[in-house]
């Protein structure tokens, strides 16, 4: 089987690593082999974070080659553009959280944050399949902005791109997340699914 490749990009503290892990555990629960390569150093200190997830296939190395990712899950618009341009294949699916996390360069007035239109325009040159929405607002609606990662997983699941079904993903969430946060995360997951349906149609 050809492997299914996802690149997750975001900023330290956004829960991208947990999102990769949940995705990988779902793959394992579906009986598939999985490899994740993560790039984070001082991730919690506001730096860029990236996860490469390969499900199935025969590759030995966890890194995905440039322009070969089937899906980009961007947790922040600038980080989505940064990784999407490099890794997303032509006409791959780009899921993007439109909530901006300004870096210290922007906060302290050294550089401006790019226009949203320009960032999305970069991704638009790679693919027509761009689904962008404010996932952090939906997570806040669910009860905690930290659930942005589960909103994104909801959208990814709804896209039907994953090589396993929604039931597998839900099983993993129930199995892996702390029970007292489960209800909140289930709301977040459903809001992500809805958002995908609305924006993609």
């Amino acid at each position, binding site marked *: 089987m050809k492997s299914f490749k996802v690149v997750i990009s975001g900023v330290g503290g956004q829960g991208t690593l947990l999102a990769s892990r949940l995705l990988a555990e779902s793959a394992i629960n579906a009986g598939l082999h999985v490899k994740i390569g993560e790039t984070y150093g001082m991730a*919690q*200190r506001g730096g860029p974070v990236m996860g490469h997830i390969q499900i199935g296939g025969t590759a030995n190395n966890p890194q995905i*080659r440039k322009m070969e990712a089937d899906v980009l899950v961007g947790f922040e618009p*600038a980080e989505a553009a940064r990784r999407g341009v490099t890794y997303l294949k032509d006409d791959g699916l780009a899921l993007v959280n439109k909530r901006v996390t300004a870096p*210290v360069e922007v906060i302290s007035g050294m550089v401006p944050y*790019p226009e949203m239109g320009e960032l999305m325009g*970069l991704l638009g040159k790679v693919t027509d399949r761009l689904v962008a929405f404010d996932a952090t607002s939906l997570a806040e609606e669910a*009860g*905690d902005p930290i659930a942005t990662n589960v909103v994104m997983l909801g959208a990814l699941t709804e896209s039907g791109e994953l090589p396993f079904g929604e039931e597998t993903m839900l099983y993993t969430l129930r199995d892996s997340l702390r029970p007292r946060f489960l209800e909140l995360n289930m709301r977040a997951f459903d809001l992500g699914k809805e958002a995908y349906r609305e924006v993609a149609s």
Partner: protein
Amino acid sequence: MGNEALARGAVEAGVALASGYPGTPSSEIGNTFARVAKELGIHFEWSANEKVALEVAFGASMVGQRAICSMKHVGVNVALDILNAITLRGVKGGLVLVSTDDPSQHSSRTEQDNRWLGRHNDVPIMEPSSPQEAKGLTKYAFELSECVKLPVMIRTVTRLSHMRSDVELGEMQRLDREPVFDWEGFSYRVAGFEKLFRRHEERHGKIDSVQEIFEESGLNELKLEGEERIGVIGVGFAFTYVKDALEHLGVEDRVAWLKLVTTHPMPERLVARLVEHVDTLLIAEEVDPFIELHVKALAKDVNPDLKVLGRMNGFIPREGELSHEVVDSRVAELTGVKMPPEARDSLEEAKGDLLFDRMLTMCAGCPHRSTIYALKKAVQAVKGDLMNVVVNGDIGCYGLAHAPPMEFEDTYFCMGASIGVSQGMQRFGIDTIAWIGDGTFFHAGIPALQNAVHNKAPIKVVVADNQAIAMTGFQTNPQLGRTATGDVVEPIMIEDIARASGVKHVEVIDPYDLEATEEAFKSMLDFDGVAMVIARRECAMVAVRNMRPERPPVYIVDQEACIGCKQCLNTYGCPALMWNEDEGKASIDTTLCMGCTSCAQVCPVGAIHRRDDA
């Protein structure tokens, strides 16, 4: 995860003791033990530093127990003194040292290749290429260690330590060996001084025997069908790039390859089979030409015409980790395969023009930011100019003090160095501030502080005490009053150590009180002699975590009152602050703000306050 697999391998080998010091990319090995040690009847500890950690593990080995000790690459520099002694003396219970190297310096100040340190001390080295192999090799390393009576190094790189994949598990085991000191092996009283003292020759004999074992171990894999003129050696994790490149380019049948796992001592006979067979040999390894150098020496005897390509002649860049791009293109060049042109060059360029780098910064509400803010004000007031002191920082989150907008840190080098280097400067009248964290103070700051008192170097020490080893994931240190596995113990307070060491001016303050903190720094700077201020406040990430499921109190910028002076943004610069260009006013991102109140104290017109209903 690679690191978890390493820990699992040790558990499957019946390890009785695990120790280490946190540091990216090694920390998850210890974190894993911290989670499971009690349940499995293993002793795990985060030790004071890497040297102590390895000594603790060696002690266990001398009484017959299997022990593992993990650290990042620079940690082995700290542990080198005892490592050298262990290799000369030998081990009893299997002793495994895990060194996690960091090619391309993802989170380190160097990309040093620790295989040289292993070789320097006749330590056998094995390098896994997958989490599965990491588990298997760790288990095997204990057997090898006991067989040849040497410690064994498992050397990983960041990409492997942080790689996740499905791993097939084996049985966990408990050996429950009776602890008995090996008198004949280690005691001067019993074995006699002469027998134990000069051991260099014996160590050579041991490492030679390891080479024989590695030749026949089956851990390495040679693919040589007979017609190939080109060969590639993929060393450790680098093998994954090589294997994938051969498949990607469709040249598997034309290229011979060797997957080399046992890198010291190199199995020369096995490598010679490839060396004597091919005309051209590419060596892919991270980071230094460790195997390449050895292959060149070997080729002189068995195939002097062999063309060796790798890091030494720059065929592969001399620095940095490997990538698909590098290995694919080099293999393509050797085999004459045409690579597709880079299709998105212009798009990448447009992206580069548009995007910022996203510099690292302290988190929203980080107490270190408040400490530095107050320190700058105090230095300005007492010294007249911020450039009238050299700020020698140290290793930890607070090391980000050099970044905008704080920009108040000049150097940082290695654990504890802030206090040492400050003394050499102070000796010649250069005013300094040593800026060190709580974890780092315990690791290597204490001898340096005592040196300052003893040798009368009147340095000023600021301890950024966030009550955690935060940067690597909140591991414990001796001040916290609990061990890695959750036992409650007597906390060792930094102020008590400082006072007992003869520091006459020691003050502990809460950095969220900016005014009091500034005053404390002023008296520290005015003090004649060694002086210390401990800025103590729990890491903001821990604070927010402990609030859950509650959210922090909501702080807002009163849009009527804000005068748009940007002082909060430009001089304080918390990531939770935002600037609204249209309105010309600041505001607060409530998803990030953790309610520390510092920016409210910075605002000159009192426009920032807690929302009435929150």
